[in-house]
């Protein structure tokens, strides 16, 4: 949502304009996708790291 849209974000009566609503909905969708990528990366990294530890344990 741009600054200009901030100022024009409301329709009369305090309702959000269609454009503002769409921008905010897009942002939610982006964050949902970002959340999946970020946390899945965390899981993948952690699993890899634990595998390395187990390999180390095996060769010790």
């Amino acid at each position: 949502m741009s600054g200009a849209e901030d100022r024009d974000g409301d329709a009369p009566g305090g309702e959000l304009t269609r454009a503002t609503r769409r921008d905010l909905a897009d942002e939610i969708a982006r964050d949902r996708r970002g959340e999946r990528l970020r946390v899945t990366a965390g899981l993948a990294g952690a699993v890899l790291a634990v595998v390395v530890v187990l390999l180390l344990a095996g060769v010790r």
Partner: protein
Amino acid sequence: MTADQVEAALVGVLVALVACGLAPTLGGVYQYLLVPVHAFRNHLGRAAPHLPRVAVVVPAWNEGAVLGASLDRLMRLEYPPDRLRVVVVDDASTDDTPDVVRAKAAEHPGRIVLLRREQGGQGKAHTLNHGIEHLLRDDWMEALLIMDADVIYRPDALRRMTRHLADESVGAVTGYIREGSGRPGAVARFIGYEYATAQACARRAQNVMGAVACLAGGAQLHTRANLEAIGGRIDTTTLAEDTFTTFLTQLDGRRVVFDPHAVVLAEEPDSVRALWKQRVRWARGNMQITRRFRRVWFRPARGHRLGAPDFGLVWFSVFVLPFALIAASVGLVGLYLLEPGAAAALFARLWWVALAVYVLITVTTLLVDLETARRSWFEGLLFPGVGALVLVTASAWPGLWEVEVPALLGLRMTDAGVTAWTLLVYLWPVLSMVLARVVHDLEGRPVVGVLSRPLLYLVGFGPVLCAITLHAYVREWRGAAQTWDKTEKTGRVAG
């Protein structure tokens, strides 16, 4: 009972002590296993475009150095200006705080209001209540944002929080407070990593559990309905007013949500002394909360998940951590004196547990918050301290430090030396907490003060936090005066 039976019983007790030492690890591992689940189980699915009228209350005592920048950033938030008002409650400051606010109020007429308490020093909760009382007098406010005077909101942070209030079951939302000093020193970088573990990761896990431990004091957004339901004021009897409010909200049947994308930058202490002062207050507050809500723990109930066993495990894992370290050391040393072979065998079996947990937590944390990882990866790796990492290698490769390393130097450790080394390794969890206090005492002293930073990395930040927590428990147990020691802020945040 024969002497052998007594010894066997004693060995059993000591092994149990070592096991107690590992117990808090379970809480940590459990939380980290939940972090990836947050990818699919979070509140974003129930969030919706929603921009309520938000009143921001900013408690301020001698915040002249930081308040101007915070207010400027609030005025630049990507949020409809007619839906955002700021009330600064000046807690009888003796610096130029009122002048700074008046100047900003003149720049933004009608959007910034200054309230002044003539009698100050009663603490943050009293100051907040002064502002909340003012805001509840009319119907304008639909949501209340409580923040600290020094924090800097990213332009999109507030609207990323308000979207969750579209779900009427939500009573409050908190954002991700990230350490944001422009040129952070060692302590601030450690805190940056700590916040990534305690917020970016742990709060995600708490979202999954359905029970959040604390709305960050610098970023808590309440619906008006929630605020009124919990009494229209902030509790003034504990040192953890933010946690108290968090618990009341959830006990009253409303959800608390953490949004990791709503980022708020804060200046955190960059010295162990300042950290000690701040965290003693926090830990005492948590002890008060634990006692005050004693009928909640491990008692599942309808309407909230604070009493769920998993949330209790997570809460008490942190609460008992200093005692766990002591138990582990006492158990290992006791076993060494009774049955040296049993102590060595137990110690050797523990190494993979410690290493796996360390790797799981460190890798996940660094990958979940790459921005913090860039700033604090070194502190993340050394969070448990060089000493603890040496301990892990000593456990994984018996003889490495007593035999192989001295042999490389053409030396041979005597039997007394091996005994001393073994005891040092077994006692390290306790010794590291003692040394943490030495770091505190050395800091800022002429000449020897330079040792405090290397010693901090040797001891590690985790043991420093444990030592502080232990100190706080002693103070609380002794009934020390409950004072609001403000953490000094200098305006180092680079937003």
